C-alpha cells in the first residue's frame, strides 16, 4: 500500500514541527526519515500512523484519504522507540494481543493464534522465549518482540520510530541488516525514523532528509550522498571540511591559492563556503601536475580502517584528510611535514552567502 502526505503542517506553540511536508512512499518500499533531533521526523511518522494529528494537510493510504481515520482502523504496525511492550504480559501474549482484541466474528481460533504467534516468533528468532516477560529480555530482543507484535496483525504499513535508537552499537549493526532481510521477505511498505545516516544509507531504498520541519531532499542513498542538494545535506551525510573563500570565474580563491570549480557552481560570490569530505582529498609528497595547495601535517591518527590526518592549509585553516594505510606508509608522513593537497575526481560543494543560493558540481 502506498502512502502519500500533502501539505502537512504542525506546530507546538512557537516550535514548527512540520513546515509544509509533501511525501510519497510507493508500495513495498522501505524509506528512512533521516535528520537531526528536532527535525520533525518523529512527528511526521506519528501523523502518518494516526498517533498525532497535523494542524492542516492530508494523509492518503493507497490513494484514499485517511487523515481522520482512527488509529485502530488504520491497519498500521507501529514500532515505538522504547518498544512500549505490555509489561504485564508474556512475549507470547504481547504478540497475540492484536489478534485477541478482534471482534468475535473475525477473531482467529485459539489454535491458529498460537500457530501464527509461534511462526512470527520464529521469524524474529525468539521462538524459545515465548513465556518470558519483557523485563527478562535484552534490548535487542525487546525490539524484535515489538516488531513481531506489530507484524501479527498483518499491517498494510509498518512504521518504526528510531527502531535501533536505544541499543548498543554492535546489536544495532546486526538488527539493521536483519531488518533489511526481513523487509525483502515481506515487502510491507515501511517507513522508519533515524538520526544515524549510516543506518539510513545501509537499510533504506530511499532516504528522506529532514531539517527544521522541512524535507531537504528525497532520493536513493547514492543520489543523496553523491548529489546533495544543500549544504545541510552534504554536511549531515558525513564528515566534512569547510573552507572560507571567494568565487570568481569558475575558480575558488582560498587564501593565496585558487582551485577550479565544477561547471554548475555559482559564478561569483565574495564570500563562499567550500565543503569537501576528508576522504575526497588526497595527499602527495610532491606536486604532480594537478591543481593543489600546500599544507602542514599537525596530527596523525592511524587507528581504524583509514588514517586520519589533521593539517593546516597554507592560508592557515585547519582541516582533515582520510587516506588508506598503504598510502600513509608510501608517503611516510610525519608530524610537521609539508604536503601537497589535491582534490579527488568527485563532488565538492560550494555555497555562496550573499545572493544566489546554493549549487553543487561534480569533477574538477
Amino acid at each position, binding site marked *: 500500500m502506498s502512502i502519500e502526505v500533502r501539505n502537512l503542517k504542525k506546530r507546538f506553540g512557537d516550535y514548527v*514541527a512540520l513546515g509544509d511536508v509533501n511525501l510519497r512512499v510507493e508500495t513495498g518500499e522501505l524509506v528512512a526519515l533521516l535528520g537531526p*533531533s528536532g527535525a*520533525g521526523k518523529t512527528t511526521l511518522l506519528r501523523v502518518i500512523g*494516526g498517533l498525532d494529528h497535523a494542524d492542516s494537510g492530508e494523509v492518503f493510504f493507497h490513494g484514499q484519504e485517511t487523515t481522520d481515520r482512527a488509529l485502530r482502523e488504520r491497519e498500521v504496525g*507501529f514500532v515505538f522507540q522504547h518498544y512500549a511492550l505490555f509489561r504485564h504480559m508474556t512475549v507470547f501474549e504481547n504478540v497475540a*494481543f492484536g489478534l485477541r*482484541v478482534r471482534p468475535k466474528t473475525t477473531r482467529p481460533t485459539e489454535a491458529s493464534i498460537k500457530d501464527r504467534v509461534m511462526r512470527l516468533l520464529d521469524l524474529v528468532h525468539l521462538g524459545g522465549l515465548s513465556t518470558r516477560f519483557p523485563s527478562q529480555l535484552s534490548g535487542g530482543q525487546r525490539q524484535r518482540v515489538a516488531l513481531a507484535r506489530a507484524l501479527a496483525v498483518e499491517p498494510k504499513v509498518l512504521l518504526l520510530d528510531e527502531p535501533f535508537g536505544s541499543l548498543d552499537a554492535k546489536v544495532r549493526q546486526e538488527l539493521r541488516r536483519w531488518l533489511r532481510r526481513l523487509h525483502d521477505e515481506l515487502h510491507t511498505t515501511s517507513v522508519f525514523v533515524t538520526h544515524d545516516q549510516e543506518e539510513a544509507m545501509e537499510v533504506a531504498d530511499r532516504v528522506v532528509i529532514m531539517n527544521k520541519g522541512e524535507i531537504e531532499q528525497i532520493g536513493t542513498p547514492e543520489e543523496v550522498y553523491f548529489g546533495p542538494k544543500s549544504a545541510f545535506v552534504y554536511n549531515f551525510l558525513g564528515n566534512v571540511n569547510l573552507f572560507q573563500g571567494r568565487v570568481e570565474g569558475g575558480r575558488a580563491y582560498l587564501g593565496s591559492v585558487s582551485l577550479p570549480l565544477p561547471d554548475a557552481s555559482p559564478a561569483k560570490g565574495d564570500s563562499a563556503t567550500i565543503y569537501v569530505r576528508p576522504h575526497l582529498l588526497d595527499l602527495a609528497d610532491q606536486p604532480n601536475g594537478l591543481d593543489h595547495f600546500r599544507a602542514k601535517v599537525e596530527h596523525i591518527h592511524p587507528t581504524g580502517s583509514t588514517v586520519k590526518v589533521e593539517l593546516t592549509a597554507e592560508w592557515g585553516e585547519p582541516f582533515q584528510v582520510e587516506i588508506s594505510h598503504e598510502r600513509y606508509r608510501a608517503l611516510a608522513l610525519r608530524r610537521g611535514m609539508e604536503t601537497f593537497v589535491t582534490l579527488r575526481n568527485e563532488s565538492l560543494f560550494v555555497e555562496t552567502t550573499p545572493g544566489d543560493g546554493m549549487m553543487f558540481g561534480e569533477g574538477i
Partner: protein
Amino acid sequence: MSGARSRETTEPAWVRRLLIGGALAYLALFLFVPIGAVFAEALKKGIPAYLAAFRDPYTLKAFLLTILVTVLAVPLNVLFGIAAAWAITKFRFRGKNLLITLIDLPFSVSPVISGLIFVLLFGNQGLLGPWLQEREIRIIFALPGIVLATIFVTFPFVARELIALMQTQGSEEEEAALSLGANGWQTFWRVTLPNIRWGLLYGAILATSRAIGEFGAVSVVSGHIRGKTNTVPLHIEILYNEYNFVGAFAIASLLVLTALLTLGVKTVVQRRARAEQDRLGSAAPEQTP
C-alpha cells in the same frame, strides 16, 4: 548507604544514641503509650468483659453500618479516580492544573465543615430541605448523608495516587494497543488497568481506612440514632460518654488492630506500587517540545 558513611559524615556514637533516644521518647509519649493504654483499658476488667462488649447488638449494628458506608463510598471514589486520572494524564486541555487543585480541595476542608455543607444542602433549613420534606426523603440524619460526607472526606485519595502514577507511565502502551486494533475498553481493561492495579489498590486502602474512621463529618450528618445512624467511631463516643469505658476501649482496640493491619498491607502495596512506577524502561520521547 549510611552503613558505609565515613567518620567525617556521621556523629560520635553517644550523639547518635542520644538522638535516637530523644526520637523514641517523643514517639513513646505521643504514640506507644496511648496505643498501649487502649489495650490496657479494654482488658481492665478481664477478657470476658472485653468479649462481652462485642456482643452488644448496637455494636454489631454500628459495624454493619460502617461496612455498608465504606462499601458504598470507596468504589464510587475509585471510579472517579480512574476517570479523573485518565482525563488528566492522557489528554491536553486548558485548566488542567486548576482541576488537579480542585480535586485536592476536600483535604483542606475541616471534617466538621465537610459535614456542615451537606446539612446546608439537604437539612431541613437547607437549600433542598423543603423540597425533600415534601417528598419525605431523608438524607441528613440518615444513610445517604453519612455516605455523602464519607465520599467527600475520602474524595482525593485514589485520584491523586493514580494521577501521579499514570503521569510517569505515559501513553505509549495505550497507543500501541490501539494501533494493534484494540478498542478503548479493551485498551483500558487489558493494558491500562493491569499497569495501575497496585497504585489503585494503594489509593483504595487509604480511602477505606479514612472511611472507616471518619468522625467529625459523619458526626454532623448522622444524628446519632443508635442502631440506625451510628457508625463505629460514633458508637465509641456514645459508650465513652456513658462511662462504659471497657466497651469503648474494646471496640477501639479492634480499630487499632485494623489500623496496624492496614499499615502492614499498605507498606507491602506501596512497595509494589513503587515498583510499578519504576518498571518503566522509557525516557521522554524525542522531539516533545
